[in-house]
């Protein structure tokens, strides 16, 4: 266990924090609607820099990351997360309209836990969130 005493997902009393990173308001609204009704604390970021800032500040239990955002791209944000020992354990779902094979490979290489190309089934997103809320899986 890290010395900071990371208790994410281990305390059933405190809700998991999910950070939604997307430059499109309508997409953030959709993801938020999917998570509605579950016990999540939801935060939103509108570009790459804001995403990274909120990840560092809020230490979310799950990040849902868009790929094409102004400033840092989702991919760059992901690489920062995985390169930072304090953040590396954060589960990340990549939600992106970049759906070519090369994009999928890049995302997987960068260390995303899930890759959901748009358009996606809400159930798939909900399932991925449910699986990852307890932390990264092997």
């Amino acid at each position: 266990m890290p010395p900071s005493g990371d208790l994410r997902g281990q305390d059933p009393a405190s809700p998991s924090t999910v950070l939604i990173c997307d430059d499109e308001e309508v997409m953030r609204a959709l993801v938020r609607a999917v998570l509605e009704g579950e016990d999540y604390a939801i935060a939103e970021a509108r570009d790459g820099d804001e995403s990274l800032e909120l990840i560092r500040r809020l230490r979310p239990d799950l990040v849902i990351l868009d790929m094409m955002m102004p400033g840092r791209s989702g991919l760059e944000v992901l690489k920062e997360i995985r390169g930072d020992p304090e953040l590396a354990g954060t589960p990340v779902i990549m939600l992106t309209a970049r759906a070519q094979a090369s994009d999928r490979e890049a995302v997987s290489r960068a260390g995303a836990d899930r890759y959901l190309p748009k358009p996606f089934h809400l159930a798939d997103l909900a399932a991925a969130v449910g699986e990852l809320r307890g932390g990264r899986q092997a």
Partner: protein
Amino acid sequence: VNRIADILIVEDSPTQAALLSHLLERSGHRVRVAGNGQEALAALRERASDLVITDVVMPEMDGYELCEAIKSDETLGEVPVILLTSLSDPQDVIRSLQCGADNFIRKPYDERYLLSRISNILTSRELREGGKLQVGLAVYLAGDRHFITSERQQILDFLLSTYEEVAQINEELAAKNAELEARQAELEAERERAQELVNVNRAVLDAGTDCIALVDIEGKPFLNNAAFRRLLGEFPGLTLEGSLAENVAAVSAVASDPEGFRSFCHPLLEDPEFEGQYEFELRDIRRWLRLATMPVRDASSALIGRIIVLREVTAEREAERLKTDLIATVSHELRTPLASVLGFAELLLARELDEATSRRYVETIADQAKRLTGLVNDFLDLQRIEEGAFGLTPEPLDLGDILREEVELFSSQFTAHVLTLDLPEEPLPMMGEPNRMSQVVANLLSNAIKYSPEGGPVDVSAREDNGLIEVAVRDQGLGIPDSQQEQVFTKFFRVDSTDTRQIGGTGLGLALCRQIIEAHGGEIGFQSAEGEGSTFWFRLPREPAAASRSGE
């Protein structure tokens, strides 16, 4: 008139004897053949002939000796003797006269000439039957004194035939000379044709845009064309005068992928039969070249070297890249609104929602569907433009109205940006297609907003100047780097930098704007500085008639 005669041929070569016999027999003469001088004398003693034709060069007894023997023989002396001689030595004439020969025939002989000579001899012999006069003559030839004791008529005949012979040789020489001259002219013409062919080939080589070079079997360059030399001119460091191996090293030093270039060239250097193609980029100038090479053979299919053709494929590469980018862009642009439409539809179907939420979702679906429609329309427009089917149905309109509508629409949608509009008080009358004019203004506003990701003012102004209406849309956004300004109106082009990479768009908007403005008889342009923003403007002819007509 051909006189039939008995002729004795003395010839040591059976082939020559057979040839001559055949010729004489064909003309009706009767022929006997003797293989040497003794046989000839025996044959004559057995039965006289009308004529003896003897080869000069024979073993044991040569033609001269045979002739002397015949002439000194009491019974045979009257038989005319013709010597077959090559007449290569002036002394031959003297030898012929001394041995008392009646005539000679030069080898190789002309058949027609031989036959007429035989006929003359036979006639002349009849004429000089009777008055014979033996003379003794001392003659000098080539410094030597010779004594000739032939009959006068015989000498005269002989000398005349010699003269005749010389005349014939002269004739032959003239013919030979004419032949040589003709051959010379032919060669000259051939040379000219060859030169012409060289010139034509040179023109063909030089007119092409492919860079062509030929190297010999050792790899040394021996021919190249104008395009090739122009290409070299663009690389001052690259002379390509050395061997193929040296040139491969020189080019790989300036290639973006030196290792790849070298490994392509390896078989090219090792195997004279190698054929292949390879595309490579020149690192510093970012230009792509396609190299094609194959062996060159001579007329007998022997390898004489190799041809190397270089063609610049930068434009093709760029088009390919734009197409690939376009596919990725279209995919991305379609997927985002599709995800919203499908996502909110799923929510509507799966959940019990209050009326306000349902309504909000349905409105979102409608907005996103509109966005999809706009995208599809852009593509269709572009396709129509490309097919040349871009027709306008202009009507009188006030451009001021269109500017007011669009600015109002965008102000309500993009609250992070402050849009201002500066219009003159008078209307801006013109002939145009209202939808198309709205499309241009909307595209320019949308770009100004998209490329000002931090928010910031977008100022729209219009003024009238000298019969033209000029509209400008100014933002204080990211601006366009100098290096990319040339391509701004190119379809599918999108400004690329770390700041703009994430900004969506089809890259069709400005290409469409230019088509529309130009179709209205106007022009479109921009000023931009990276980091300071851009001003896009267009000018269209003002049509006062449009205002009065619209006022009717």
